[in-house]
């Protein structure tokens, strides 16, 4: 260092910020930009990792549009979202509303709802696989002791994806309870008091005071659960392997299988790219719909 410390070298001043961001730039280049470019290249190739890459033009895309299983996987994922998101909002909102009341050990309730959120999805899935068991599963034992019939939670193809959606809701709902709680607490109590004076019904109070206040939260919950739901993987991977009858085959599981069971790297990258575009599209549409709803 030859220059005196306090006189700042102009060259250094222009270069310095780039050094500060250089770790991220390297990361960006390697793990974000390269993969995006490379995945686009891959979509035009057939490659099983060990043989040389083979250029196949748009074959992968043609195959994608004819690949019924992939479309089924997307529909499955959408079905998951259709069950999961409303369920999540209703349960989270209800619990959050309960928690706005002053109650003994409220903190304990909040903490217990939140517990599954921090636990690994692997644990939750292994656990629920047992809860959902046909014969000795806890849930079916409760049902039979109540005089109700058993439910084929994971072995009936009409039910299996719904079972997974219920489990996912159980796992995540605690987070959304907290988010709604924050949202609900922003509503000034005076609004409700004023509404009481006007003689508003509970539903009217909810519809015209609460709902507008938590609308941004609902939007966020929808977006977050959509993005989370689209990456559904470990639950079906552990619980059902995608069955029965491919009813729980999620798009991510299918992409994983194409890549790491059949080693169709090019095709899998095509599916990944297409699926990513689809996710972005869905999120944009959601954003548009919910925001124009106000």
């Amino acid at each position, binding site marked *: 260092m030859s220059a005196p410390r306090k006189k700042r070298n102009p060259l250094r001043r222009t270069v310095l910020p780039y050094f500060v961001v250089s770790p991220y730039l390297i990361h960006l280049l390697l793990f974000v930009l390269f993969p995006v470019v490379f995945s686009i290249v891959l979509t035009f190739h057939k490659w099983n990792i060990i043989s040389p890459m083979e250029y196949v033009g748009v074959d992968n895309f043609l195959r994608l549009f004819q690949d019924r299983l992939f479309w089924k996987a997307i529909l499955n994922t959408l079905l998951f979202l259709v069950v999961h998101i409303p369920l999540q909002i209703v349960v989270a909102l209800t619990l959050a509303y309960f928690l706005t009341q002053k109650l003994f050990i409220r903190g304990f309730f909040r903490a217990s709802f939140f517990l599954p959120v921090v636990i690994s999805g692997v644990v939750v899935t292994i656990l629920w696989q047992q809860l959902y068991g046909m014969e000795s599963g806890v849930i079916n034992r409760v049902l039979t002791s109540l005089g109700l019939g058993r439910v084929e939670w994971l072995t009936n193809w009409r039910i299996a994806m719904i079972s997974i959606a219920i489990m996912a809701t159980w796992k995540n709902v605690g987070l959304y309870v907290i988010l709604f709680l924050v949202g609900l607490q922003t509503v000034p109590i005076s609004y409700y008091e004023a509404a009481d004076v006007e003689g508003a019904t509970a539903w009217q109070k909810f519809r015209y005071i609460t709902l507008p206040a938590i609308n941004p939260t609902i939007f966020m919950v929808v977006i977050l659960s959509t993005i989370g739901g689209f990456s559904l993987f470990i639950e079906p991977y552990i619980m059902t392997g995608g069955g*029965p009858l491919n009813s729980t085959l999620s798009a991510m599981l299918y992409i994983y299988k194409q890549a790491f069971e059949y080693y169709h790297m090019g095709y899998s990258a095509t599916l990944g790219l297409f699926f990513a575009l689809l996710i972005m599209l869905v999120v944009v549409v959601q954003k548009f719909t919910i925001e124009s709803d106000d």
Partner: protein
Amino acid sequence: MGTKDIFRTTFLFLFFSWAFTSCSKDRVNRDNELLYWSSNNGGEIQFSNWAVDRWNSAHPDNLLKYQPVPEGQSSEEIILAAVVAKTTPDIYSNIWQGTVEFYSTAGILVALDTLEGFIDFIQQRCDPATILEITSGDGHIYQVPWKINPIMTIYNKRLLAEMGLDTLPQTYAAYMDAAKRFKKDTDGDGYVDQWFGNTSVKLAWYQRLFNFYPLYLAASGGMPLIKDNRANFNNEYAIGAFRFLQELYRENYFSKQDQSAGQDLFVAEKYATKFTGPWEIQYLDRFKREGFEYGFYPMPVPDDHEGPIYTYCDPKSIVIFNTCSNPQLAFEFVKTMVSEEGDLEFLRTTNQLPRRKGLDSIPDFQAFFSQNPQLQVFAQQAKHVKGVDNCEVLTEVFDIISQEYEACVLYQIKTPEEAIADAERAVNVLLRVKN
């Protein structure tokens, strides 16, 4: 920010990036030593140690290094990862016959028939049918058939005796009849809780190797699934096997419970039979309760079946990777490993059958089997076994069959005829695209 800072920043990142790469891969120095990988199954490790020690003491100039395949997801994936990272061993002894074609097509295996003495060796070891089975589509041979585990029906002796069965239910009709009588709701809660049998309901393609495929081979007398690069299975045997299994599930004679999800219900005597291989013997010795008696018999066959009953034998082979510096030497080692003496030692330590002809005519082997009557049944069966067809995309073929299996057998939304026809169509499309 001084120069020091800049250095520190850059260094920090580089440190994180490279610190782990340097310490993680200990590459083997193999200038002259050959490296041999076995599976990581306890018995096989013991056998491989024996074989390598014997070789090394006889060939001090050509020492061999040995290690079991690193434990992990599945040995197939480990091998693939090694191929990709170019860290393959010279010799690997536990490759499934069905994946050899995938690797040989990619050009990473040594064509063994180009080695001196291989043809004589293979003709001595295997019968012509086996040699035909392991010959690749390009006419070369890339594998030494090593061991087999034939799939058979295991049965609980007490349960079958209590039913008053005097002969084993060998035909579809007899099996179905016994199954009907066995199904019961023992605790009266309205749900069946004892079933005549069980086989995996999982969708994974390889599960079909242990139910549909052996039934198909048994019924058809060992016909291939793929012939002349076309599906060869749209026939009465495959349809019959599907119908047989479909009825077992439809009537609730077989449990749809996933056997790996909970307890083993065969051990708990809730299942009377199941389809399995010789590994079940050692497993049962560990987990069965006192007085639990069992036996094995061939896969069920159609009522009008004639001739020997074939089955699938889950064959594993030995291959030499083309990264090997001295394939001839590697082959010499393999020869000693699968010599009569080697095979006998292998049989003793692992309870798995060597894939060689005349298993029951070699005196030492005979002596062993007479002490191990349960295994003797498998040795008898070994005369009528098949591996799999040589096909680069075999995994996907089985995956297609598996899809149809689920739709037809497990959920009855297709007739066996439809399911098999659909599978045939899909397989033909697959084979056409691939080639």
